[in-house]
């Protein structure tokens, strides 16, 4: 039966991966790539072992340890016993089941969502899953990529499929050009501020429009990465020449004749003219300003030039109470100017903003300036290869000279599973993705922002409009 209805990018990827449609509409969906890390996989491998099952496609599965790894010198291994056991368990599992693995001392090691695109493992039109909610990152390449729980990790390991129901389509169109001083991070914070942290629940978000097209792949990955902070399991950006140029020549990219066939297919993937979306949101890029979060939900965004909002303006008692609780946790008062808020720690890294472009942006602000005395500022490259690339450009020297710590690759202070944690009450300017209570360490206070803005906070000691420094 010929498909004539105009289809979205999501519809096309979905349709091409349905192995079987069950009577109630649930689909058995084929999974092209499965990325595995140490935190959400041990129980899945144990399940396989207990049932006497194998990994169906080890060649489509890639493992790396990232959440627990120390970002200081690790030639001596991992000191913390539980973290060490988790990484050793992954190493034992990948050896037993024959899964490709980038060890801790391999330059290709890094955050799983940095490594996938960097190695060319993630490609347009694929379905990609990982036991991690930020799997949405890979949607920047035009892949349907989403986070799954450990039971589903086991299901994919055993069957290379998942039982899923199709999501709804949401279009977020960002029209016009982004103003100077604003980045992809400001776009996605603006979107989450608009739709709210549950706005995308049940949807896959496709990002389109001039401002999205103008972004490089790093920026697109930042946008798709935080789809989950808007409630959407997956974000998507149609593949284009920027995408193809990024993938070409990477270790796992198609080569020769396969490359030409792949590109021809990739070019057929963008949403058809007239395809319909369940929800459409339009954002005007020229209206975007550098944004920061003030509360403990990623939807709590405010212009850096603005002030802490007053819970009294909330619509319901429940919302007032929730916002007041956030202010108490964050140690802020209504009306306080954001730029008067002093920081103790600056964290530049994570799967949101740990790519070479992010480190360049931070170094450009840091160059010729000094981290304010008493502020701890750390830069954690997203992978060993990002670290090498930054060092080849001399960015490490710029950052170290300015007083930043230059560390090894990993998830680090994004979620504090390794020793990189905030102490209770410490306030952090962070390029990561979640400002939840205790996310970066028990009692820690997080303000999310772009890498340039985080670097600006490091050299002034307070939340700062990076456009002021550029003058």
């Amino acid at each position, binding site marked *: 039966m010929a498909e004539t209805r105009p289809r979205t990018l999501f519809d096309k990827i979905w349709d091409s991966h349905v192995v079987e449609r069950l009577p109630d509409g649930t689909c058995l969906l084929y999974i092209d790539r499965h990325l595995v890390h140490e935190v959400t996989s041990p129980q899945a491998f144990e399940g396989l072992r207990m049932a006497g099952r194998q990994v169906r496609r080890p060649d489509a599965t890639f493992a790396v340890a990232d959440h627990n790894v120390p970002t200081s010198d690790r030639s001596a291994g991992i000191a913390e016993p539980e973290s060490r056991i988790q990484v050793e368990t992954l190493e034992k599992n990948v050896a037993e089941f024959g899964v490709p693995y980038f060890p801790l001392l391999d330059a290709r090691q890094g955050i799983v969502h940095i490594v996938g695109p960097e190695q060319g493992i993630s490609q347009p039109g694929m379905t990609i899953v990982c036991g991690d909610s930020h799997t949405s990152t890979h949607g920047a390449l035009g892949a349907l990529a989403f986070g799954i729980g450990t039971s589903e990790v086991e299901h994919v390991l055993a*069957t290379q499929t998942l039982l899923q129901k199709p999501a709804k389509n949401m279009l977020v169109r960002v029209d016009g050009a982004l103003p100077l001083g604003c980045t992809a991070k400001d776009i996605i914070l603006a979107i989450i501020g608009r739709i709210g942290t549950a706005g995308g629940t049940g949807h896959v978000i496709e990002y389109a429009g001039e401002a999205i097209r103008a972004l490089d792949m790093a920026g697109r990955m930042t946008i798709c990465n935080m789809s989950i902070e808007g409630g959407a399991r997956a974000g998507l950006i149609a593949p284009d020449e920027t995408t193809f140029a990024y993938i070409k020549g990477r270790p796992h990219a198609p080569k020769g004749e396969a490359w030409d066939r792949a590109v021809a297919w990739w070019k057929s993937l963008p949403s058809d003219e007239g395809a319909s979306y369940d929800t459409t949101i339009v954002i005007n890029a020229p209206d975007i300003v550098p944004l920061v979060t003030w509360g403990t939900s990623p939807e709590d965004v405010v212009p850096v030039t603005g002030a802490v909002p007053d819970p009294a303006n909330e619509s319901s008692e429940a919302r007032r109470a929730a916002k007041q609780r956030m202010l108490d946790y964050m140690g802020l008062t209504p009306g306080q100017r954001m730029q008067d808020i002093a920081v103790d720690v600056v964290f530049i890294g994570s799967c949101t903003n740990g790519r070479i472009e992010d480190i360049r942006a931070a170094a450009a602000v840091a160059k010729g300036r000094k981290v304010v005395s008493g502020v701890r500022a750390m830069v954690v490259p997203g992978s060993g290869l990002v670290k090498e690339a930054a060092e080849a450009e001399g960015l490490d020297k710029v950052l170290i000279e300015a007083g930043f710590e230059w560390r090894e690759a990993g998830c680090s202070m994004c979620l504090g599973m390794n020793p990189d944690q905030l102490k209770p009450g410490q306030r952090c300017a962070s390029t990561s993705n979640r400002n939840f209570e205790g996310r970066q360490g028990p009692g820690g206070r997080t303000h999310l922002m772009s890498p340039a803005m985080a670097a600006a906070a490091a050299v002034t000691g307070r939340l700062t409009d990076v456009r002021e420094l550029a003058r």
Partner: protein
Amino acid sequence: MQPFTTLTGIAAPLPQPNVDTDKIIPARFLKTILRTGLGKNLFDTLRYRPDGSENPDFILNREPYRKAEILIAGPNFGCGSSREHAPWALLDFGIRCVIAPDFADIFFNNCFKNGILPIKLPQEVCDALLADAELGANARLTVDLERQVVVRPNGEEIRFEVDPFRKHCLLNGLDDIGQTMAHAPKIDAFETRRRAEQPWL
């Protein structure tokens, strides 16, 4: 997986919105390689003071809610990380059913894989159930999955919707992998066609 049929138990109220999975089980407790044992750290930062002692104000530290098997929660429950440790921690504590106006997608999925029933009901219905849950020793609800009803302490029955396939799996305690394995010939055929048409995949 333990089947879920009918559950009668204490319901605890936790009405705050956007309870994220970091709040359900903070990342520092994810270093386990087991599924069990996480119950003691469920809602850790709400449940314990910085010195490790219990916070007497937190609902699950009060009688009879220490034995709660049902949670009446706020909107967007389970947002954030995909960690299945969140339902594992709830289950290990003894909670088999969460009722809320809506849930984050990944958490919602993960519940079904672990014999936990998440039920979406409109905010005003949740408000009534929150009031029931405030009744202390009388905060007992019955959740009947077969009939798809929640029975309030006053006997009123509230109908809820559940995906038929997921209902079937929960009622019978079925593991999805075994069921998917039954489709193995279809998966084989899909892979064979793929290898011919799109060998780079």
